[in-house]
């Protein structure tokens, strides 16, 4: 291989575990173990810290042979995309594959569980397959510390869907504006007793939607008590749990905003079981406009996100990064789709 003969390789190649071990004065198996581990709950030991410092200094990358070949493009991008079973997420993937194919790139997808550790395994696997860049759709809030710990210096990374509070560029929907649209709609209908099925705290899609929603309410002097904003999962089960907390009580709300359609469908099940009619007894707003929600008996009012466009845009920007151009974050516009699941509250102001 020409890299071996050119002499460039020695300067450019990443160090082996053995070199890290020699410099740190520990056994090579210790280096191997430390660099594979995630941080223990009680923190790194002094030895582990030294090993990691030396590895950083030498520019260690998990796969030395892959690293030596890194200057060679593979025209492949890696995508780490949890929650693929949600139509909106899979639609983003279709957009990714569509744009990548058009631009001559192949896509490698990993769809791990939506946990930090599982996403880390996926990122490391895709890097070992020598992708030119990574699209990460679902990092958790406060992602910079996590990203720093991965030592991704040689890999181009773009975030999408969730910006995760990171300094890295991200292509997202305008979740804050979407939350505002939902709140303005419910206020205009006359709702004042409102609850939010808020999604997971680690997902900035969810927290931005809630923040936009709450902001509009506070602008008209309504402050939502904490028990009116229920954290939840994004799945149907999350909607079930969240809606029970908001509706199965003596003073149920007259309107619910769920931060995604899937959770909203869970809320529909709870309303049905409690004998609440939609929209007569309960107005419901979802988020994403997945294809099934227009077919519900009371077609769901929701906020439409440009999922396919988001995937396409993210691929174009990632390729810009790979080609050395600079990229800034973009928030794609969203719009409200008013359907039959929202109506004025039945007895305004009567509830005490």
């Amino acid at each position, binding site marked *: *291989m020409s890299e*071996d*003969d050119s002499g460039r390789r020695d300067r450019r190649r990443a160090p*082996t*575990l*053995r*070199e890290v*071990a020699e410099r740190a004065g520990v*056994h*090579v*198996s210790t280096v*191997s*173990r430390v660099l594979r581990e995630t941080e223990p709950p009680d923190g790194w030991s002094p030895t582990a810290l030294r090993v990691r410092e030396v590895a950083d200094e030498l520019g260690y990358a*998990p*796969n*030395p*042979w*892959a690293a030596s070949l890194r200057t060679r493009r593979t025209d492949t991008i890696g995508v780490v995309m949890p929650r*693929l*079973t*949600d*139509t909106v997420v*899979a*639609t983003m*993937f*279709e957009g990714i*594959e569509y744009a990548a194919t058009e631009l001559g790139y*192949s*896509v*490698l*997808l*990993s*769809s*791990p569980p939506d946990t930090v550790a599982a996403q880390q395994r996926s990122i490391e*696997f895709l890097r*070992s*397959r*020598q992708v030119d860049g990574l699209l990460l759709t679902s990092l958790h809030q406060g992602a910079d510390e996590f990203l720093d710990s991965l030592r991704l210096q040689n890999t181009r990374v773009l975030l999408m869907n969730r910006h995760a509070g990171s300094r890295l560029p991200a292509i997202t929907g305008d979740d804050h504006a979407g939350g505002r649209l939902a709140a303005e709609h419910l206020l205009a209908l006359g709702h004042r007793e409102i609850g939010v099925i808020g999604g997971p705290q680690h997902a900035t899609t969810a927290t931005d939607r809630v923040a936009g929603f709450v902001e509009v309410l506070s602008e008209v002097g309504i402050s939502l008590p904490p028990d009116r904003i229920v954290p939840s999962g994004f*799945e*149907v*089960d999350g*909607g*079930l749990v969240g809606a029970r907390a908001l509706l199965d009580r003596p003073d149920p709300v007259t309107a619910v905003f769920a931060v995604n359609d*899937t959770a909203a*469908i*869970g809320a*529909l*099940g709870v309303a*049905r079981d409690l004998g609440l009619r*939609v929209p007569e007894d309960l107005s419901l707003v979802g988020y994403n406009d997945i*294809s*099934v929600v*227009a*077919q*519900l*008996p*009371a*077609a769901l009012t929701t906020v439409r996100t440009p999922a396919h466009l988001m995937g396409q845009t993210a691929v174009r920007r990632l390729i810009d990064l790979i080609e050395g151009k600079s990229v800034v974050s973009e928030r794609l516009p969203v719009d409200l789709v008013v359907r039959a699941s929202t109506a004025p509250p039945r007895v305004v102001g009567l509830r005490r």
Partner: protein
Amino acid sequence: MTGARRNPRPPTMKEIAERTGVHTSTVSRVLRQTEPVDGWSESALRIHEVAAELGYRPNPWAASLRTRRTTTIGAVMPRLTDGVVATIYQGVEQAARESGYSLLLSSPPDDPAEQRAAIDLLAGRQVDGLLLSSLHSPASEFVADLGLSVPTVAVNRHADSGLPYAGGDDHHGGLLAGRHLLACGYRKLAVVGGPHHATTSRDRIRGFVDALTEAGIALPNDYIKHGPFDVTGGIAAATALFDAIDPPDAIFAVSDSIAIGILGVARDRGLAIPEQLGVIGYNDIPFAAQLPVPLSTVVTPAHDIGAAGVRLLLEFIADPDTVPADIVLPVELVARGSTRALAALI
């Protein structure tokens, strides 16, 4: 290329084998495995120690150059926006990971030419085997034309491909749906299928027709509709069925998404579910149970189908001369509010 590489470099499996006094294939197997539930054997422990000592790190590309194995499998799976397909995919990914294999996925449009391009792409990346989820029936000629050089299995749709296959028992699922609608007292039955090329749909319809035949009921051709597997397919088919001179009193949809499209049209026509129209779907997606009138359906083990596909493929990779037996997983019916309570037996 080995001669050109300088020390220090990671050891080869052969060097680990020499140092531990076992065969290279043993080293390869042990280093690929995850720890067995009853712990490592002594010789496996020794191999791990030596490997760590010598600074061994797995490198799939290098491995492929030595043994032509990459411990990577490829999956070609169109239609990931269907939650059922995505669930199968997650079953594939999890099973592959648990077996120490990596997975490369391509999700092209559901069209033979696009699938062919995707298969070529993955085959070019030296995968050890391929999983194909959406072949179009009859696929035997298509498969022969591919000239596949690696073990390949069909998952979800067998597509009359002749490939080893893992899927759900679609015929039995259709049979259960038909018997259920009859037991509820419906008599003017219709079925809304997927595309003609999808054997999942075809086998479900055949099972359904068999249930009607058992009861001495014939299914007229214009009560059998075909279209896409999604809500739009249900909307188009239901519109045609309700516009007919003698509309059905119950519909079997071969997917829940189709069923939800049918429910939307029924809503627009003011049809009461389940009194004026019974609807039964297929798959039991998470939405089905939460609908205002919860959907009766046939539960398919989508995650397990994916895992079974991987099991089948790894068997085939381990022994390419023996074609492994198909895996057909059982399905079951869940009766909910979208079909009438069972008619009293007289």
